[in-house]
Each structure stands twice: as structure tokens, then as C-alpha cells.
């Protein structure tokens, strides 16, 4: 007899959902959309400045294309996806009325959350592996496999880049956890998945606005999302770990706080859905 709501059981509840299929579809389509969009490029506009354009970096090879796709996606798409994957499972069950049946199956409340969170987190990790891999594949096929051109100047060979990219992906994964945890904490208290995802996004956007206020100084370091782009550091010729370390630590702190809040809230709440 396996434990109630095993990882496999929860996996089965989530993978077949239209939502999951849509997310995967969008992630797979994204690189193709970019390839299509870049194909429409007619070269630099006349009279524009001589600086290198984003398009030229992105299309200079599979490696650059991958980094470009990852950068664009991590700005908002992956944030929404993370909020959806972690924020939606509990309110979705509540809105289907199936939550009470899971709890009386019986599945302990903590166990239910553990299963939901671990499946959500694994889904997020899989997407974060699929997206750059797929982008690299597409990019290499379309733009060739030249080494990575650093926007600030210099180049990294693929052998240099790939381990760094792996760390960058791991970092992006960790950096997405706070917003996912906020969505989760909101989600366990509501019957509407949209409230969880929307609430987390609003929190993320407000943090972004606060982050742009210089007067707040170093207080801003603690805002979720402040260090979100720090993985770009890894693509410099030389890099240091300070910002990455800060980003990871803050992300873990926020994720812990909000996951714990969600757990506590769900453990005590009266399930009325």
C-alpha cells in the first residue's frame, strides 16, 4: 500500500489537463515564433544607430538564440507559468469540488500539498529544461552552432557556455520559486485558480515597481525579482557569485516563507468548497 496521493497519482491528475498541454504548447511554440519573426527581419533600418541590434545577437547562432529565448521567457512568461503550476492545483481541485473527496479519501492535508507542490515544481523544472533545449535545437538548426557571442564583447565556446547555461537555468528555476510560492499561498485559500495566479502576478509587478524606485536603496535587494536577471552574470567573460548567491538566498527565503504560510493556512482552514 503506497501512501495516499502519491507523486504518481498527483502526476496523473495534472498531466492530462488542458492547462498543462497549453503551457507545453506555448513553450514549444515560442522558439518557432521567434525564428519566424526574425525571418521577417529586413536588416537595420536606414539612419538607425550603428550599435548591434538584438536580432543580430539572437540570430548569430544556436547558443545566442537559446540565451535570447531564455531571457525573453524569464521576464514574464516563465513567471506566469510558475505561478500557474504552483498556484492553480489546489484551487482547481476546490473548484471541481474534488478537493473534499481527496481530503476524505483520506489524504492528509500536508500530504496533499506536498504532492501538489512537488508535481508543480517538477513540471516547472521540466519546462525549464525543455525550453532551452528545444530553443538550442531549433536555433542550431536554423542559425548554426557557432560559439556564444557575449553582447558586451567576447565569446564563449559551447564547451564553456553549456555548463554555465545549466547553472543559469538552475538559477532561473530557483528565482521563479518566490512567485510560485506566493501563488501557492494565495491558492490554498481560494476556490478560483485565477485569483492565485493573478494575485501572485500583482505581487510580482508591485515588487518590480518598488524595485525601480532608487530612493529605496539597498532595501530593494530583498524584493522578490530583484536578482532575477543575475544569471546573465554567468554569461560574462568573468563572473562572480555574489549576486547569484544573494538571489538564491532571497529566493529560498521568500519561497520558504510563502510555502510555509500556505501550508499553515491550509492545515487550519475549514474546507467549505
Amino acid at each position: 500500500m503506497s501512501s495516499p496521493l502519491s507523486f504518481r497519482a498527483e502526476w496523473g491528475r495534472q498531466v492530462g489537463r488542458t492547462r498543462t498541454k497549453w503551457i507545453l504548447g506555448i513553450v514549444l511554440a515560442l522558439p518557432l515564433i521567434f525564428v519566424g519573426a526574425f525571418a521577417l527581419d529586413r536588416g537595420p533600418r536606414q539612419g538607425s544607430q550603428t550599435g548591434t541590434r538584438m536580432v543580430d545577437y539572437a540570430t548569430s547562432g544556436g547558443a545566442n538564440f537559446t540565451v535570447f529565448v531564455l531571457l525573453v521567457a524569464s521576464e514574464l512568461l516563465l513567471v506566469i507559468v510558475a505561478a500557474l503550476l504552483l498556484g492553480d492545483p489546489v484551487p482547481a481541485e476546490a473548484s471541481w469540488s474534488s478537493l473534499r473527496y481527496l481530503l476524505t479519501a483520506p489524504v492528509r492535508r500536508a500530504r496533499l500539498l506536498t504532492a501538489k507542490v512537488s508535481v508543480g515544481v517538477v513540471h516547472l523544472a521540466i519546462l525549464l529544461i525543455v525550453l532551452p533545449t528545444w530553443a538550442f535545437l531549433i536555433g542550431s538548426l536554423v542559425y548554426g552552432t557557432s560559439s556564444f557571442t557575449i553582447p558586451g564583447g567576447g565569446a564563449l565556446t559551447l564547451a564553456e557556455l553549456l555548463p554555465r547555461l545549466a547553472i543559469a537555468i538552475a538559477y532561473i528555476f530557483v528565482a521563479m520559486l518566490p512567485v510560485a510560492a506566493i501563488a501557492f499561498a494565495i491558492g490554498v485559500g481560494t476556490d478560483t485558480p485565477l485569483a492565485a495566479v493573478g494575485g501572485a502576478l500583482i505581487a510580482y509587478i508591485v515588487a518590480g515597481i518598488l524595485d525601480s524606485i532608487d530612493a529605496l536603496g539597498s532595501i530593494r535587494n530583498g524584493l522578490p525579482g530583484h536578482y532575477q536577471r543575475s544569471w546573465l552574470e554567468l554569461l560574462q567573460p568573468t563572473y562572480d557569485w555574489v549576486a547569484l548567491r544573494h538571489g538564491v538566498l532571497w529566493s529560498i527565503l521568500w519561497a520558504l516563507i510563502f510555502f510555509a504560510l500556505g501550508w499553515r493556512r491550509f492545515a487550519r482552514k475549514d474546507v467549505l468548497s
Partner: protein
Amino acid sequence: MLALGAALLGLGLPAAPTAAAAAPLSVKAADLDVPVGAEPDGAAVSLDASVFTPSDGGQHPAVLLGHGFGGSKEDLVERARSLAARGYVVLTWTARGFGKSGGRIHLDDPAYEGADVRALVDLLGARGDVLQDGPGDPRVGIAGGSYGGAIALITAGTDPRIDAVVAAITWHDLAASLFPQAAVTDLGQTPAGAAPIAEPGPVKQLWISRFFAASVAGGARAGGATAGGGSAATSAGDDQLLCGRFDPTICSLLLPAAESGVPSAELLELLRAHSPAAVLSGVQAPVLLIQGMADSLFGLDQSDATARALTDRGVPVAQRWIDGGHDGPSSTATADDAAADAWLDHYLRGASPSADGRLPVPAFTYAGVLARRATVAPLFTADTYPGLGAGATEPTTSLRLREPSGRGVLLTPPGGAPASTTVIPGLGGLAGNLPTYQLAALPGQSVALDTTRSTKTFTAVGSPRVRLRVTSSASTVTLFASLWQVQGAATSQPRRLVAPVRVPVQPGVPTEVTMALPAATWQVASGSTWRVLLTSTDSAYANPREARLDRIEVLGDLEFPTLDGTPASGATTRDTESIGVAVAIGAVLLLILGSVLLARRRRAARVDRPELADVSLVVSNLVKTYADGHRAVDDVSWRAEKGQVVGLLGPNGAGKTTTIRMILGLIAPDSGTVHVMGEQAGPGSGVLRRVGALVEGPGFLPHLTGRANLEAYWRATGRPESEAGFDEALAVAALGGALDRPVKTYSHGMKQRLGIAQAMLGLPELLILDEPTNGLDPPQIAAMRPILHAYAAAGRTVVVSSHLLGEVEQTCSHVVVMHAGRVVTTGAVADLIASEDTTVLELGADGERAGTVAERLRAADGIRSVDVEDDDAHGRVTVIADRPRGQVVREAIEAGADVVGVGSRRHLEEVFLGVIAQAAHADTGESGGSSLIERLRQVRA
């Protein structure tokens, strides 16, 4: 404008409190007018001074604070207060020729500005609140930046009463600073100690212009403001106006040199005399030298030279290289001030300062490269300054230089314009985002010497050297060298400094030149490429105006002096953010652990009751009040035994569903317990495995088929598939082919049946169905009845909540009637609806009407009540009497009734309405009967 020193250096910032410092004292400030030596023309001069004293009385050592060129004592107030609060009598003054002080600027002439400070020391020697080493000999330190730093060194060299010196971003030799020469004859032993050739270098045009501008602006201001401050602007001619408040002699020497770019011998001699270099032989006091790397005016070579001179004489010296200077603030200002405090504390307040040979700060501290996005540079220390005293000469690391770009040819444009822009003096930090390389490397006027990629990572500390062979078309070669880091297309200058050379040559004859690039610290990463950029002009200097062509050949490698300093401990380098967040994470983890343990203990506090092991369900004294104050369930107790089908009855809002949710652990009761088979049930308790439930409608994953839903549910229980009994459950659902369609296509009734089937999965011993007949049509309801009977008959228990009284009457063996959160009655259905004193008469159409019969019966003896139901075809009379049933029937027949049936049962509905009415009556004490219709409506709704 040129408040050099104090403000820029950070000496104006409040000192960081150190552990050694006592609680800060409160400070009193007073202004003084100190008469000092007259000007050469006989004009009397007095200095505008302030004294800051700790207000605790007693004697304290004193500190003299000097300001930068163009500034005044006002720049020093903050720093003075912080020092006074540490327990010093602090004396600040505005130097001669500035601000409200009288006199003219003599550029730190030992005979004027030097004598002024000696007069200030005399003043301190006469004060009662200043600690005295002897009569007229106060315990006094002197500190200052730039102009004030030089006067600090000069005073220390001319007045033996000075006990400690902190000299920041200042000059050693003013001539070498204003006419710098980077062509060297000897590489020297120290990091920045190369010995230049005898020829003076090109003049720092921009800096000298700014000095004049500052002086003229200051002169105009002072001339208007003070009457006794000298006859500066009023009585003088235009020449005098041009010189501002400069001493006429100095002015007359400085102006032509600034205009021509070539200094006269007299000027060089005067500048050397107005330098610490001239008087260092007299310095006895320990000296802390703070010198900046963002300083295009007084480079690290200046403090290096002062340190060498003092160390040769055995004077204690410490050097500190910061990343600020005249071009920008130090990123380590707090630590810099703390070091200055430590220096003064040790030598002015230490127990026996001179006995202990150890320095209070490391002999050499230097700032590393500011990490990207960091705000404070890391600091490194060494016990000795390389090449000094016992210190070994600094090792070097070489990077091979490639062939120069453009075949090594560079042109000096006629007229000296356009000029390369490498450094914008005073604006080093602001120029950070300009495309500076394009401004520096003008085509045809520059030659780039690139290194090969570095194969190792090291820190360069000091002045990198390069050897060149120069062939020129003219007899004097002027070149400017700067060091850049090349990263692909981007070229950046980590230290915005430039080193000029001015070498006499024979036209067309190759001449070897060794160049010392500006001293600073660099982080040379493995794989990085560096570039020595040689330009023929530089906008900060006076450029030669005649056209010239030079050819450059590389003679050797680019040599970096390297040092492996110890990272300085302290707040500046510790990553407080990481530590803080890590601690917070630890605290959160502890909190989580604590609450998990607490929850576990709470779960362990559940009490099982083994004596109830044979009872399917016992609900004891349940109470639940919702957050809005509504008491939904109030002291509810009942039980369901094995084999029973228990109906939970009650109008809407009676608390049925809340009770069921509490049984299932979905809602936490405020008090009371639920025991299933003797085990206390609560959220997620294991005994719920033996309970199947349908609560307030079914819930399914809409994207899965009916069958997949049941399977998914069963998988969630974690129990083996063999226990599920899918076939029996699916038979109950009776969905046929619809079973393999997604649930979202189901009708309400189909979902309801699937929900009942799901509740029956695993054949739980207790089956709780909340309104199971919702959405079912009569045949389906009828079909459900035997299923439930059969289910309970096997020794299991079924609890059905419903408001369909007829349904409950036919299905249930027992009922629990709830009203307004309370249990109003419980018992077997048969007991409730049957009773000895009740006789139900079915009347045929042949006899009297039921109403007539009832009238007559009421008149008979021993009849308590008579109820009538009548329509055209049938009549029903319910009689409650104290007499035996036979007599009642006989009475009825006598009354003319056509009795076709006799029964003893009332319908449950009557019972139900009766008890509800009673309960309502008991609750309100009135209006029980009048609202009966209303209640009936509720029940039927």
C-alpha cells in the same frame, strides 16, 4: 567647487563607531579669530577657526583638521564633531587665502601656511582643556586631505610637537604632480616607486586652470565679504584680479607655465619647496597616508615617495590605497575613516604609543576592484609595503605584447587638436557610461598595444611597466599611456588614469623609453586581454601644438607588479546580505520545524475510545460557530450503529452538512468529538479510510472520463486496486457507455450516480451520503433504495442526509432530526411513526364524508385528537385516543364511515413537522403554530 580632500575623501563623513570607542560625548563648538603672521606686503592676517570640545570637561588630546583647496573649515564640521565626540579637542581653520580667513594663497608655503599651523599649535598649547606633553607642547595630531593633507605633512616636518599625522590624497612633490613624467630611468623597489627622468612632463593644464578658477571665484567672494581680510580685490589692478587670491609671486610663475606648458626653473624650485618632500627630514610623528586610485591629480606615486622617505628615517608609516580621490569618492569611506580614527587613537590616546612598535593598522591596505553591482570595494592588507623596510620587492607577472596596431605610427595633429579624452578630472565617476574608448583612441592619433590572453588570474598592485622604442620626427616626444581591458568589441578602463611621457630625442633616431603606467590595482583574470593605449594628445594636459609623427616599437612584455594581500576582515568585505538572509532562512526553518512538531503533538492528543469499536459512528457534543458568529451546530450528539441506515433530517440551515463535514474532518469543530469505530476522527485521520462519502454534490476532474475519475480517486487513497471493487461501484453508477466519456459531458444525475459510486469504492464500513437523491429521477431513486438496504444489511452503516421525508421514511431504519443546529429527536423510524394510541382510518367512497366522521368521533369519549385528510375519492382520518384501536374502529363505523383500511402509522412528515414545531416553539416561546406553514415550505423546498 574644489572642496578637495575632506568631502571627496570621505574624511567629512562621520566615523564608524568602533568597538573600542566609548559612548559618544556631546560636543560644544566655538568660533575663534586667530591672528597669524602678516603677508609679505605687511597686511595683517587672521585665520577663521573653530574649536570643537567634548563637553565632559577634563583634558583631551587635540586634532587639527585641514581642508582642501578652495574649501573652508565649514567642510570639516561633521568630521570635527565626530572626532570631538570620540574625545578630542578639534581645531579646524580656513587656510590663508580662502573663505573668511585673510591673506593670500601661498600654496602650502612652510613659511606662511606652515607657520599658521604652528601658531594654531601654540594656541592649543595654551588651552587648559588640551592634554599637554610639556609646557606649550600639546598632545596633538593633524589630519587633512589634499591641500590640508600637504599642510599636515609640512607642519609635522617643521613642528616637532605634532604627535600623529593622517595625510590623504595629497602631494609629495608638487612639481612632479603638476608636471608628471612617466618615462623612468629606474623601476624602483616599491609598487609605485619608479624614478622619472630629469625632464619635467607636460603640465596638467585642466587642473591648473581649475585652481585659478577656484581662486578667482574665492577672491571675489572674500574681497566683498571681509574688510580686514586683505586688500585683495579692491585696491588691485587687473593683473591682481587675474590672480584671484594667489600670492603675486606664485601667480606670476604659475600663469606663464600654464599658458606655455613648460615650467620655468624658478617655478619648479618653488613648487618643490612648497612640498612635504622638502621638509620630510623633520617629521617625527607617525604618518598614515591615504591615497586614491581615482585621482588624476595626485597619484599613488606621491604617497609611495613620501612613504619611502619616511621609512628610510624610521618613522612609522602606513599606506592605504583607496578607490576614490580627486576624481571620485571612495567606496570604502567608512572603513577609511575608521582607519584614520584608529591611527589617531593609537598615537594620541594609546597607553604608551611609542613603546609598542606595532602599527594600529596594517602597513599596507589596498582596495581591490569593485565587483559588478557591488557598492563597496574589497580591501586587502599586507604587513609591509613591498620594497620598503624588511619588505621584499614585489614580484611581477608579464603579459606578452603583440605588434602595435596601425604599424605603430601615430600623429600629433597640428595645433594639438582634437585631443584624446581619457580622464575627465574631477568627473571620473560621472564619465562611467560614456563611450570613452572611442573618445580616447582617436584614429591615427593612437596606437594600441594588446597583450596576449592572460593564462592565470592575479591581482596587479602598483604601476605596470612597458618598454618601447620611439622614433620621432621631432626633438621632443610627448605621449600619453593608459591601460584598458579588452572584452570583445568593448574596451573599458578599470582605472581612469593616464601617464604622460615627455622625452627629448633626436629626430629619426630610435630611442628606448621605459614607461611606468599609472599605479593602481587591477584584477587580471585568466583569459583576459589588456591594452596599453598610446595617444599623442590628452585633453587634460597641455598638448604640443606642432605636428609630429612617431613610430612605436614594442621592446618587451607588459609587466604587472603583483601582490597577494590578505582580504581584510571587517564589515566592508563581509557579505552581510548573504549572512543576514541565511540567518533568516534558518529562523524560518526553525519556525516551520516548531509548528510541525506542535501539529504532530496536537494530532497525538486525539483520544480513541476502544469501547466504541463496534459502533460505526458516535458524534458527541459537536459545536461549530462560523467566523461570522453563526452557530451552525450546537451541542450535537448522536450515533449510528452497524446495520443501520440513519437518516439525518432537518430543514435547510439545520446544520446537517456542517455536521457531516466535521465528521469527515473537513471542518474543525470548536468542541466535541467524532469517533468512527472507536477511533477519534479529524482532518486526515486514518480511520476515514473506512468511510465513504458524498458531500454536497459530487466532484470530479472534468477532463477525465468517469472511469478514469474513479481510478484516479482510488489511486489517491494509495490502497491496492484489488480492494476497490470497481465493478460493484460501476454497477451502482449505471452509466453504461458514458463511463468512457469525460465527466464534463455528464448530466447532473450522471455525476450524482458516479459520486455515489465513488463513495462506495472499497465498500467502506460507514457510507455517508449527503442528499444522494439530488438530480435523480424517480426510477433511479427507487433503484437506489434496495442498494442502500443491501449495503447496510451486510453489517455496514449508511448515513443519509435528506429533506425528502418520504424517501427517508422508506429508506432509513433510524433518523436524527436536526433543527437550528440542535438535535431535536432521534430514534428508529418505526418507533417514531408508529404508536399504540394512533389509529389511521382509510375511508371508502360509500360512507359519510371524512369531515362528518371526524366531527362525530371528536364527540365520542376518550378521543384526544382527530386529523382529517379528505379529497373526493378518499378520506383519511387519524385518531389519537386513549381507547383500544378496536373500539375506535367501531366508533368510526357507527359514525357512518366506510372503513376500508386501518393502520397504526403516521407519515414521517407529520412527526417531523411536529417535532420541528415543538422545537421552534421551545426556541421562541411563541408563534409555533402560526409559522408551521412557513416551515413546511422550508422542508419541502
